[in-house]
């Protein structure tokens, strides 16, 4: 494709000196606004909008109490996803990295979370409903960190060994852990855990981080996401609950999660750090979108692929303008 001449560049930049036509820009804007308003009202009246009820800990405790119970044990043992996450919640791991860039680690712990205390002990301490719970809390609080770890880990391992079937867990040195897990599950069944998790630390609360993280440690939220077809491996970012369109504009972000090595957590280093790699890729691509006018090859595509001939077809025909020579 022939590069634009200096005169062509100056021509493109200069005020238009050629033929013009009447164009009522205010009228056009008004018609467009009325069109959009009417279309939006029609869509709203006939389609509505998505609004699936949020999950609750009460719902979790009723529908799958064993899973909530086992997750509680993981929080006490420090083996849950939250307890082993890393920044910005704790220092349990270094988090994700891309090459030498450990941004997650470098950003530090800005929302400190102690999963055993914040998810189990603190909420349970607000509602001591029996002497057994009171004794279990007192035993836990007076024990050393090592003792707590030994009790909770032994129980967590035992539950894992019987694949979550609590009735098959053999007797062992679990300390107060079974009583604490049962107490929290019962508290959740009564509906008290939802409020207790949110209200930690004060009257006014708008931060749902603890609830969301605790939810994510069990299977309740994950199963609901799978049922609603929202998992990342199935273009979840673009989907929406029900029959509604989701964030379709995130298609390129979702795309990377569908292909290797990003969709394989076992693949190192990229798959294991896919979230970080994809954020970098999208950052570069977003910058690329802004800089298209100066990116070689890409910036010449409109001249090479003559879609513009269709856009300005009427003008070209009227003026008898042929396509620029290659």
């Amino acid at each position, binding site marked *: 494709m022939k590069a*634009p001449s200096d005169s062509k*560049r100056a*021509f*493109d*930049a*200069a005020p*238009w*000196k*050629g*033929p013009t*036509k*009447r*164009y009522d820009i*205010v009228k*056009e804007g008004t018609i467009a*606004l009325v*069109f*959009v*308003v009417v*279309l*939006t*009202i029609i*869509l*709203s009246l006939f389609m509505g*909008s*998505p*609004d*699936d009820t949020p*999950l609750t800990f009460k719902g979790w405790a009723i529908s799958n109490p064993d899973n909530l119970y086992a997750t509680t044990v993981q929080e006490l043992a420090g083996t849950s996803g939250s307890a082993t996450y890393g*920044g*910005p919640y704790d220092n349990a791991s270094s*988090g*994700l990295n891309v090459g030498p860039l450990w941004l*997650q680690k470098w*950003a*530090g712990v800005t929302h400190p979370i102690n999963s055993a205390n914040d998810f189990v002990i603190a909420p349970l301490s607000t509602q001591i409903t029996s002497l057994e719970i009171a004794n279990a809390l007192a035993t836990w609080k007076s024990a050393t960190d090592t003792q707590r770890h030994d009790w909770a880990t032994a129980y967590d391992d035992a539950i894992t060994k019987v694949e979550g079937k609590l009735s098959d867990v053999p007797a062992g040195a679990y300390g107060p852990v079974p009583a604490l897990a049962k107490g929290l599950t019962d508290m959740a069944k009564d509906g008290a855990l939802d409020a207790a998790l949110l209200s930690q630390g004060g009257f006014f609360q*708008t*931060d749902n*981080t603890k609830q*969301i993280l605790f*939810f994510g440690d069990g299977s309740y939220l994950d199963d*609901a996401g799978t049922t609603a077809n929202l998992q*990342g491996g199935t273009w979840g*970012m673009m989907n929406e609950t029900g029959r509604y*369109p989701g*964030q379709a*504009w995130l298609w390129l972000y979702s795309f990377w999660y569908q292909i290797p090595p990003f969709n394989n957590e076992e693949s190192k280093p990229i798959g294991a750090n896919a*979230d970080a790699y*994809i*954020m970098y890729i999208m950052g570069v691509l*977003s910058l690329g979108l*802004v800089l*298209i*006018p100066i990116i070689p090859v890409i910036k010449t595509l*409109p001249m090479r692929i003559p879609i513009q001939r269709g*856009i300005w*077809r*009427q003008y070209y025909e009227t*003026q008898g*303008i042929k396509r620029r020579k290659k």
Partner: protein
Amino acid sequence: MSEMWTAKLRNKWQKELPIEKLLPDDQPAYVGSWIYVFGVLTLSALAMIIFSGLILAFEGPAWYHTSDAGKFTNSLHFWSVQLFFVFMVIHLWGKFWMAAWRGNRFATWATGAVAFIASIATAFTGYLVQTNFDSQWISFEAKDGFNSMGIGAWFNVTNLGQMLLLHVAFLPLILGVITVVHVLMVRKRGVVPPIDAEPSSVSEVGR
């Protein structure tokens, strides 16, 4: 008099963007395709988003769960966002194939692209403040990406209060300013001429 900042600003404004450019009653003859409509449709959808969003803001994030009027207003907000993105993406593709950055219009393209990215961020925070199951799910899933970049240390997608304030105040302000700048640049520079139009093909006959 001419040393006054106010006078300098006014003179520069009048020179660069006189009212005839800001509200023109004519356009170059090549402005005839349907593709030109999608810019103003995008702005119209944005107006509808702001209008329905203001009503939702006055009533609070949980109002629409329990009120028919709230549900309808939320639907207006939801569908105007969907239309906004459809119109904007078509507008963006149209401008790409027109190579609309030609003729010193790089900044016009760049502000449009940044507006698109800012729109994605604004819509994303909107999905986080729906206070329904979808927002629970999105916040849990999305936190990993932001945390992996260290951004999650300050942009906490599981913090409803932070996301709500960003969604109704900060991000719309940013998007609004970028959009205004973008539109002013379009008016200042004018609509890009056709790719195959050469100086020799344009007579001075005018309108």
